[in-house]
């Protein structure tokens, strides 16, 4: 290039471009911290290991998945999106609970139902008690012979009972 001004202009251009590029790089979000990754990985299970949460799993595969979470976080994905991505890629078993759809509703519904049945049984037993208690109240009113001797014996027995307890 003959004209030094043009040389300068070209240099300036490239310098400016370089500045522009570096400034975009530095303006990018800082990489998500380990804690942010772990917060999501805690709720996920390792797709290949047996029953191991993703934040503590020690295999290389798990390390890759955690880096994947970090990458997705840095791209701006939120927790639900990342979890859904994992489900699409690896199946429902990566979630720590079955998703609330289809057959899986049974997981959540059956225990309360069975416990409810248990409560009904308990209430029935109590109804029985109520009936008996009512009977006894009625009897108390009809049995109106103040048997002093019997009541004395009962008091003594009560006293013994309390002493033994």
């Amino acid at each position: 290039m003959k004209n030094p001004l043009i040389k300068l202009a070209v240099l300036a251009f490239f310098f400016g471009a370089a500045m522009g590029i570096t400034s975009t790089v530095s303006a990018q979000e800082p990489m998500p911290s380990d804690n942010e990754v772990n917060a999501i990985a805690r709720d996920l299970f390792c797709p290949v290991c047996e029953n191991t949460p993703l934040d503590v799993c020690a295999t290389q595969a798990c390390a890759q998945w955690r880096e994947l979470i970090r990458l997705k976080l840095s791209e701006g994905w939120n927790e639900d999106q990342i979890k859904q991505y994992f489900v699409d890629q690896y199946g429902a078993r990566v979630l720590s609970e079955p998703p609330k759809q289809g057959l899986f509703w049974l997981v959540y519904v059956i225990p309360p139902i069975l416990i409810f049945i248990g409560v009904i049984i308990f209430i029935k037993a109590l109804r029985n008690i109520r009936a008996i208690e009512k009977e006894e109240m009625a009897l108390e009113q009809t049995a109106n012979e103040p048997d002093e001797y019997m009541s004395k014996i009962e008091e003594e027995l009560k006293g013994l009972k309390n002493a033994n307890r």
Partner: protein
Amino acid sequence: MIPDFGYGLILISFGLAIYSIIASVLGYYKRSFKLVDSARLAMQLMFPLITIASVLLMYLLATDAYYVSFVYEVTSRSMPMYLKITALWGGQAGSLLFWAWTLTAFSAAVTLREWDRDRDLLPWVVVVNSVTAAFFIGLVVFFENPFAKFWQTIDGSVISAMFQPAGAVPFTAPDGQGLNPLLRHPGMIIHPPMLYLGFVSYVIPFSFALAALITGRTDDRWTRITRRWAIVAWLFLSIGLVLGGRWAYDVLGWGGYWGWDPVEIAALMPWLVGTAFLHSVMIQEQRGMFKEWNMILIILTYILVIFGTFLTRSGVLSSVHAFAQSAIGPAFFIFIGITIVISVSLLIYRWSDLKAESELTSLLSRESLFLLNNLLFISILIVCFWGVLFPLISELVTGQKVTVGPPFYERATGPLFAGLLFLMGIAPLSAWGKTTLKTLGRSSWKSAAISTVVVLGFVIFLKMYNPYAIIGFAVVIFSALITLHEFWRAASARSRVQKENLFVALWRIFGKNRRRYGGYLIHLSVIMMAIGIIGLEMFQTETQGTLRQGESITIRDYKVTYTDLAIFDTNDNRNLARAVVSIEKNGKYVGELYPRRDYFYESQQPMTIPGVRSTIEDDLYVLLVDWQPITTEGATFKIYHNPLVNWLWWGTYLLIIGSLVAMWPQKEKSSVREQRKVSKSTILDQSEA
């Protein structure tokens, strides 16, 4: 030579078990006491034989006998001696032999008791014990033989068999595979044995229950006999579960002690029903009620023990604990099926004989609250059972695998456990037969008030806003106060009357009623454990970061500084990366911790061992994370802060003490002893007829 001898002993024991079953049944129907007694002695003899066989296996393990395939599988030359021996239960075959050992030990112990008053129950107790022994010994004999040796066949491949195949020659491996690194921990010495002891000892109450059903002696004789066995079994099972948790906490590096893993739950389920059983039998003894419940509970406990063992060893469930897949699955399944069918049939057959001698008459009576107790435990059981089976159902019906994990279990069982803790407080205040809300209220309002005040204090001064923690602590403090008050009430009354010092009085009341006060001690220990659990589950915090040497990371009141690192090979074939971190709390230096990463060359597996600082209020748990490279330029640390977690371990110590107190035999009055002698001779005279 030694393996053959060991196998021979096991074979003989199997024969003895079969003989014992046949002789007992024949003796019962022919009314021949001699036959039944010979069956009893045969059962007794199994124990020394299996003991010698087990000792022989331990000898082989300790002496690097790599011509035996089991020794090859679970040991290696570089393992320390204590691990070589405890590797006995580190693999399927050895652990089945160990099961058989503990089983025959308990069966032999039960044969040594005084049978004179229970001659009719003896044959069936022997039968049930021997059938179980025959099953487990049979598994060892036919499927998983720890004494099988290596043979090299003509085509060069190496197989494992007991007897020499045609054309094959003995083969000795140069070194063993070694135990899975996760199992190389002192916990290996004690967690499996405790758990097995707990599982196996439930055979005894179960056998008495079935004997009671078969002979029609469904009164409380069987519960009285098995009362101590039930506490012993419960104690071992509790210790086994806690040890498993402790081991996971120390070694796994997950910062927790319980992951709701299916195999953990498989061990928890018998504990749940076993605890309900312990309480429910009291009602049968005092009021002649709940006979059906007690039969159901003990049968369920035993079936869950076998079922849990089956789930763990068959590979049906996906779990971190699973043994390698094996052929014993179908055999277990058949055994479980037969046990269930026979037990349930007997139960239905004798159902009418289990009718109660009295009735529930009051809503808040002790019987009523114990019924609620049973229902709560069964509810937790249902939640656990359903959660464990659901992935199986899902896979079969939809083809999709799912995980039922901690959120499900915590949400469902949390309130139920809270209910149990509350019951633990008020049930001792209720009376047999009749209690009103007024009487209960009168004896508990002070404790309720104090616990409310304390919890309010937590909310205001400690800024504890978690609603579950609030309820949890309120219930726990309430129950603790009531239980402590029970001690106080009895001790102060006695010290007043007997003119004794308060502490002496306290000691004496333990002597007078070991069962009750031992029980209250156990309740206090459970409350301590509950405090530890609430602390960790609800208030755990964690943080992770990569540090250069000299840098620090903070969590809560602590500052953790990375000061040094050493990486070296050890003489037992490991590569160790050991970091030194110094800890400051609230600006003050409190000590150093040494988290490390062990890499096992043999199995190419890493293990992270945390450095832990334990105090009464919390644990600082520092892990050296090994998924990133570890250097002084950058090492990644993961730090957990676990509040109150040590209450869990210390509570367990108190639990052991309480159980020992509860099961300690009461000193018999001399007049009672004399009477026993007299009745013994009359029974003997009569039976000679």
